[in-house]
């Protein structure tokens, strides 16, 4: 009898352990799945909207052909309507992009030793946006360039993870050291192959209009473990707020 009991007790205990392990396993796997990040959004096709609308026509642009329904109709402010366009030089301090819930400090970076644009390195600045210090400050005439990681090995999704969700008409606000806030309106998105990156178009183009380019990575190639493309958001200054 004692022996039977112990056998029964042992069998019950084993069953409990098995069930507990199975339940715990399912729960842990659930957490693991929940922590999985989706791929970053990319614009439909490789091109949305326009690049650098000329000041004369920007006010006449028709709304985007594929507007996101829950977004207000894009405002088309007249370039030059703001009193102080273009602005003088003043470095960017922070950038906020409400449409994709981005608000971040902005650091200044130059070029890496190999001549490419330097990018935020592992450490406290890894997930901040970076202004290219040889480009105009936001609000000065010409294209100001601000970059940010899409994702990093160290921390996964980064500051510009959702950049591909921006659409023409969305606003980008850049706070400057002088207290002014330069507000840019998105004109378009382009996906460029890094091998044929159009330097002159992205860092140049219309040199007289204050514009802003946001750059991040795109087109992750799992077979080589690298992004092979760059997503560039083109926008132009439509408003200046503050001091």
């Amino acid at each position, binding site marked *: 009898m004692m022996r039977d009991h112990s056998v029964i007790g042992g069998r019950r205990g084993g069953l409990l*352990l098995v069930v507990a392990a199975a339940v715990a396993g399912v729960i842990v796997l659930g957490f693991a799945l929940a*922590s*999985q990040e989706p791929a970053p959004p990319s614009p439909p096709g490789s091109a949305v909207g326009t690049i650098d609308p000329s000041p004369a026509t920007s006010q006449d642009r028709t709304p985007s052909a594929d507007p996101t329904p829950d977004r207000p109709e894009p405002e088309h402010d007249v370039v030059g309507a703001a009193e102080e366009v273009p602005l003088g030089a003043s470095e960017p301090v922070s950038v906020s992009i409400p449409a994709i819930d981005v608000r971040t400090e902005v650091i200044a970076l130059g*070029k890496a030793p190999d001549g490419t644009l330097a990018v935020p390195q592992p450490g406290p600045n890894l997930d901040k946006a970076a202004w290219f210090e040889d480009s105009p400050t936001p609000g000065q*005439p010409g294209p100001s360039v601000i*970059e940010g990681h899409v*994702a990093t090995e160290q921390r*996964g999704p980064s500051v510009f993870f959702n950049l591909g969700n921006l659409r023409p008409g969305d606003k980008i606000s850049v706070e400057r050291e002088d207290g002014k806030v330069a507000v840019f309106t998105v004109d378009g998105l382009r996906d*460029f192959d890094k091998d044929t990156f159009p330097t002159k178009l992205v860092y140049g183009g219309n040199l*007289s209009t204050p514009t802003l380019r946001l750059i991040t990575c795109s087109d992750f190639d799992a077979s080589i473990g690298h992004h092979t493309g760059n997503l560039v958001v083109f926008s132009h200054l439509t408003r200046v707020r503050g001091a």
Partner: protein
Amino acid sequence: MRKPLTLLVPLAAAALTVAMSPTAAFADGADGTYQTTLDPLNGSSGSGMAMISVTGDQASIDLSWSGLPETFMDAPYPHVQHIHIGNRGECPSPSDDANGDGIVDTVEGQPAYGAIGTTLSTKGDTSAAAGTNIKIAPGGSSLDYSRTITLSQDTLDALASGTGVIVVHGLDPATLSKKAANAKSNLVPELPLAATSPALCGALSASPTGGVATGSGSTSGVENVALFGAGGGLLAAAGVGLVGRRRRSVTQAG
């Protein structure tokens, strides 16, 4: 407007003297894209940007500025503009104002930006000799300039070594201190100091090459390997336990 042209010749001569100083030669070309913002000097209210794309000795030059004085002697204000070369490759700072008149004049700026290497004229001669030829200088308060020209080896070398500086001249006397506004040019005594002084300056540097490495990782892989491992391990343990339990009951039944 013919008179100032003659008067400005000593300015070119002074510039040429410095241009003769030897510069390092570079075996490889200056191929690439260079850029700079044009920022105000000497209380100027102007601003602008320049971009230069070089292939061999051919340079496609795009230049845009605004906010400079509109008229001079009842005519469009001539704003001579150059790529200066051969010195530190920088724009001067207020501390370069050697005589303390509040203006860093063209000569005072030369230790920073050097002498004229190329004249960004609207047509014809682009050599240093055309540096003060106001007949082919842009005039008025703003400019959108696009021109493909041949660059000298000295200017190509300066671009490649990061010592090329774009300077646009011509200040509004009304924005200067009374002393400076009344002063005569130290190069051309018949002209006001304002006319020959730098108004905009930008040190050229190579634009970044290639794409941008803004993605050291990806979210397309497995983010939480440890969690997946732990969960999988627990399930596997449960499976082993279940099998073991069945075997035992089979044995006992037998």
